[in-house]
């Protein structure tokens, strides 16, 4: 089934009776060449790029619930490549480039919208840090502009410029950044992988690994044993508990992050705006809801729900930045469980078990990474070598002293 404008018109005229499901619902086979554990954005993207590389390999994605039921369906949809460190910026810019061609490539509307991201600064020191970050971005081939307060005022006149404690002194703007429809991304990759022969198996939880003599031979699941040549784990906030089944401890704690959506409003917010002094970020969905969030709750959690103190803290940040937000009613609040890695950066690497690979530690920033993460993980699974943009994401970097501390705030996960 190919999507096109013509097709939409034809379906509109014939009562929308011709649309088909986007993927099959196959039974698990006894053996695969590649098994991807986790049917979130990263797992589906990995399967898609793997299948593109090897049309003939037998590939399956095993998802314990339904596709896209994890963080890919829970995040605040921001995509950007405004990173600073050499281990990070080329990877996220690679991802940004993939986003730019994504919808044409997989023939699916993921509502990628390059509406821009504006990071506000409130002190001279912060402005200097943003200038440095902008230069690092330019060096990696991304785009960046440093705005003065007048330019920020022209873009977003509703901000609280004269806040006594946090006056707005300018901002770092990346125009190519923006948002994408998170579910659409998962569905697009799922459909693309399915069309290339990948078995997407839902309601199939991996409950153990079979390891013989240091090598993986398959996975135990709620739907029986499945043999595999190679197994890639991409389970976002569940990495700790899944890898424990393979006898591994990770430099990761699982924490809850909450997100918020207001009632639908008229177009108000031009792009994504972040409040550099606290931790608050906001954008407006195409339906008009203000989508915003802030800090993690700050203690280990698998509860997929947060607590009131952080709701209070985030809304305070919102009120300080744009007082008019206080007039909007909050419609929904929810939480997602994320891996908080000890340096705030991801892990894409082989593991000590031969044939078992890990994609983890995305903290609260992994949605923007979905295309590059899938691409780099598929590259690693296929060739046993890291992709050129992901070479810094090694598992042993902590022990070797090569941590990638993007925020410069130390080893404690609750600081990222």
């Amino acid at each position, binding site marked *: 089934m190919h999507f096109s404008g013509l097709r939409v018109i034809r379906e509109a005229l014939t009562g929308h009776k011709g649309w088909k499901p986007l993927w099959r619902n196959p039974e698990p086979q006894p053996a695969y060449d590649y098994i991807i554990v986790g049917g979130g954005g990263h797992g589906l993207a990995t399967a898609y790029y793997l299948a593109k590389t090897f049309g003939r390999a037998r590939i399956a994605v095993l998802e314990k619930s339904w596709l896209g039921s994890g963080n890919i369906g829970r995040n605040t949809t921001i995509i950007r490549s405004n990173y600073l460190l050499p281990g990070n910026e080329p990877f996220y810019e690679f991802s940004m480039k993939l986003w730019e061609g994504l919808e044409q490539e997989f023939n699916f509307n993921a509502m990628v919208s390059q509406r821009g991201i504006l990071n506000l600064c409130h002190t001279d020191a912060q402005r200097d840090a943003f200038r440095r970050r902008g230069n690092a971005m330019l060096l990696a081939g991304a785009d960046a502009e440093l705005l003065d307060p007048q330019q920020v005022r022209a873009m977003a006149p509703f901000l609280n410029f004269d806040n006594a404690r946090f006056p707005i002194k300018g901002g770092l703007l990346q125009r190519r950044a923006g948002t994408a429809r998170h579910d659409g991304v998962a569905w697009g990759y799922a459909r693309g992988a399915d069309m290339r022969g990948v078995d997407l198996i839902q309601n199939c939880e991996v409950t153990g690994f079979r390891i013989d003599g240091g090598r993986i031979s398959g996975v135990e699941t709620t739907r029986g044993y499945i043999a595999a040549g190679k197994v890639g784990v991409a389970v976002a906030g569940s990495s700790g*508990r899944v890898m424990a089944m393979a006898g591994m401890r990770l430099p990761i704690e*699982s924490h809850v992050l909450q997100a918020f959506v207001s009632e639908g409003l008229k177009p108000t917010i031009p792009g994504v705006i972040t409040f550099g002094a606290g931790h608050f970020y906001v954008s407006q969905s195409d339906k008009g809801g203000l989508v915003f969030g802030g800090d993690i709750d700050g203690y*280990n959690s698998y*509860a997929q729900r947060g*607590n009131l*103190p952080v709701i209070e803290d985030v809304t305070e940040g919102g009120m300080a930045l744009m007082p008019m937000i206080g007039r909007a009613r909050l419609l929904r609040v929810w939480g997602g469980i994320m891996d908080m890695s000890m340096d705030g950066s991801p892990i894409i690497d082989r593991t000590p078990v031969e044939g078992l690979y890990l994609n983890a530690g995305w903290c609260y920033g992994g949605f923007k990474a979905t295309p590059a993460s899938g691409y780099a993980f598929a590259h690693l699974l296929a060739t046993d070598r890291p992709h050129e943009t992901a070479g810094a994401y090694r598992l042993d970097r902590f022990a070797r002293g090569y941590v990638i501390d993007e925020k410069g705030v130390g080893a*404690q996960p609750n600081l990222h």
Partner: protein
Amino acid sequence: MLIPHPLLGLRDAQEFTYLGDARLIDRPDGMAEGAEAAFAEYVYLRDNPAGVHRELWFHEQGDRSWLVVTRDTTTHEILGAELARDAKLKGGAA
């Protein structure tokens, strides 16, 4: 969340800051053989269980004591709290 402080009774969790796994009480000996590997593990690696977790909370806005709090990470239910000093004297966090 309310934390049952052993000396002060129920206190709001907002009065505390969180450090993480209570095993951080058991600091490796820096002079011992293999100290480098032991410290890399101590500083970075975590069990990260879904369920009962023993963890360190600092009563920063209260009596400035360190507590070992036992909490279920799947429900946020708090199952108990003791002074970290007492846990240490009993022979460590585990």
